[in-house]
């Protein structure tokens, strides 16, 4: 190990520093480094500046304009503007059930569980260039998180979160750090965009991955029933095009399902019931946001709490979406007749 350290040093002629403060890394430190990261990863290099340059650099750093920290305004209910954009939530896909609504229509439902979703950080234009909220959900033990991450939660005074995500917002939707985004943030009957990572399929062949038809099962085909067949031409172009559909890794891709109907909101149990299917297996995290491609007039009718729901959760009852028309009701002349007024000359 000592020889390796000397080799590294001679290779780049630059001192290395591992977890300890000394410049030259010893074999024991390399061992410890290897054991912690469980991979052969070179320790981070530290370059020492010459003294005259360093003094200049420190002067410039001191003179540079400091970005002031952002203090969010006090949390009160605000009226939602047409261009406002609220924060989303991180939920766990619990599973699927079905139900029948008051008209007898069968609805497949996905159960989403919002597990202690809280705002972890705020991103603002002066420092980051845009407005966003960092949100965390779930729970992990401190020992299973890296020290830098657990230090962040200890500094903020928040429980250790399992999953983090960022949601772009408008300026008036800013929430202070530690605010809970519960199921009551969403309203039954609204449309949501649900993002998840699809189910992992592994290395898959061309028929499953791209929907190729394969080759005939008989008529002389030998050992190539599920193969792609030809993948190119001849001398021209003389190569296989980039992006050619071939076997490979399938699944575990980030996908969004747009305009899902939120059928039921059970805020006391922090459950959301979304109609239909969403990407990913049960037990994985999904990210829920208000639907973007919805006319603003329709969005205003939902009555979304802005910037979030501020109130008691335990008193809330489950709210359902009521479909406006019964699809099984037969045509009735007195209710479904639209009188046409004929103009003169028709």
């Amino acid at each position: 190990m000592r020889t390796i350290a000397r080799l590294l040093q001679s290779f780049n002629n630059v001192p290395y520093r591992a977890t300890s403060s000394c410049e030259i890394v010893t074999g024991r430190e390399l061992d410890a480094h290897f054991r912690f990261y469980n991979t052969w990863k070179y320790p981070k290099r530290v370059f020492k500046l010459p003294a005259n340059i360093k003094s200049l650099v420190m002067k410039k750093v001191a003179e540079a304009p400091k970005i002031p920290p952002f203090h969010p305004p006090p949390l009160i209910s605000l009226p939602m503007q047409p261009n406002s954009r609220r924060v989303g939530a991180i939920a766990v896909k619990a599973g699927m059930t079905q139900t029948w609504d008051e008209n007898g229509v069968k609805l497949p439902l996905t159960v989403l569980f919002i597990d202690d979703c809280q705002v972890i950080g705020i991103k603002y234009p002066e420092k980051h260039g845009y407005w966003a909220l960092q949100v965390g959900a779930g729970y992990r033990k401190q020992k299973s998180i890296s020290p830098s991450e657990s230090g962040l939660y200890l500094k903020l005074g928040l429980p250790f979160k399992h999953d983090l995500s960022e949601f772009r917002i408008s300026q008036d939707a800013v929430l202070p750090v530690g605010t809970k985004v519960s199921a009551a943030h969403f309203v039954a009957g609204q449309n949501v965009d649900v993002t998840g990572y699809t189910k992992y399929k592994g290395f898959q062949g061309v028929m499953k991955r791209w929907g190729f038809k394969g080759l005939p099962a008989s008529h002389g085909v030998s050992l190539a029933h599920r193969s792609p067949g030809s993948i190119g031409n001849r001398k021209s172009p003389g190569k296989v095009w980039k992006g050619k559909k071939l076997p490979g890794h399938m699944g575990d891709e980030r996908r969004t399902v747009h305009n899902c109907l939120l059928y039921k909101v059970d805020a006391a149990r922090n459950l959301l019931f979304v109609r239909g299917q969403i990407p990913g297996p049960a037990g994985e995290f999904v990210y829920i946001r208000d639907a973007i491609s919805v006319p603003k007039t329709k969005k205003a009718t939902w009555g979304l709490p802005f910037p979030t729901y501020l109130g008691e959760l335990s008193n809330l009852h489950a709210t359902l979406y009521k479909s406006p028309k019964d699809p099984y009701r037969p045509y009735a002349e007195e209710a479904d007749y639209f009188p046409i007024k004929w103009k003169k000359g028709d």
Partner: protein
Amino acid sequence: MMQARVQANSGLLPLVQDIQKDYMKKGLEKISIGDTVKIGLAVVEAKGKTRTQSLDGTIIARQGAGLNQTVTFRRIFQGIGMELTLPVHAPVVQSIEVLKHCRIRRSKLYYLRDRVGKSAKLKEIVGAAAAKRAANATKTTKAQAKTAAAEPAVAAQ
């Protein structure tokens, strides 16, 4: 600041099963394959009123479990055999009344589709076997007794 998991004391699958219990009908009579039943279906009329239409027939198959259970119901209407696959917990199925139990040796009675008339008749369970079955039906299992004991306690709360 150590905080325990706030909401989930159980896993996700028990949670979904617990939710499904809310959507299931309570107090359903036990239906076996081969039973002759009278099903009350909800039918929507022109004015928007709902009335119940009763149909007699046999249960020839059962599929699924819990909330997803469906039964295939067969009847002969004006000389034509008709089958209806109905989810047991759907609101369209307003009542299922068992008229008689029959002796069967399979779980799916699809052979009845090829039979007409007397050969399609199923043998009814009578006598001592019927009495034993009736006694078994009234006897509650351990799990049912537990939930029955828990319900008044919950209602009292």
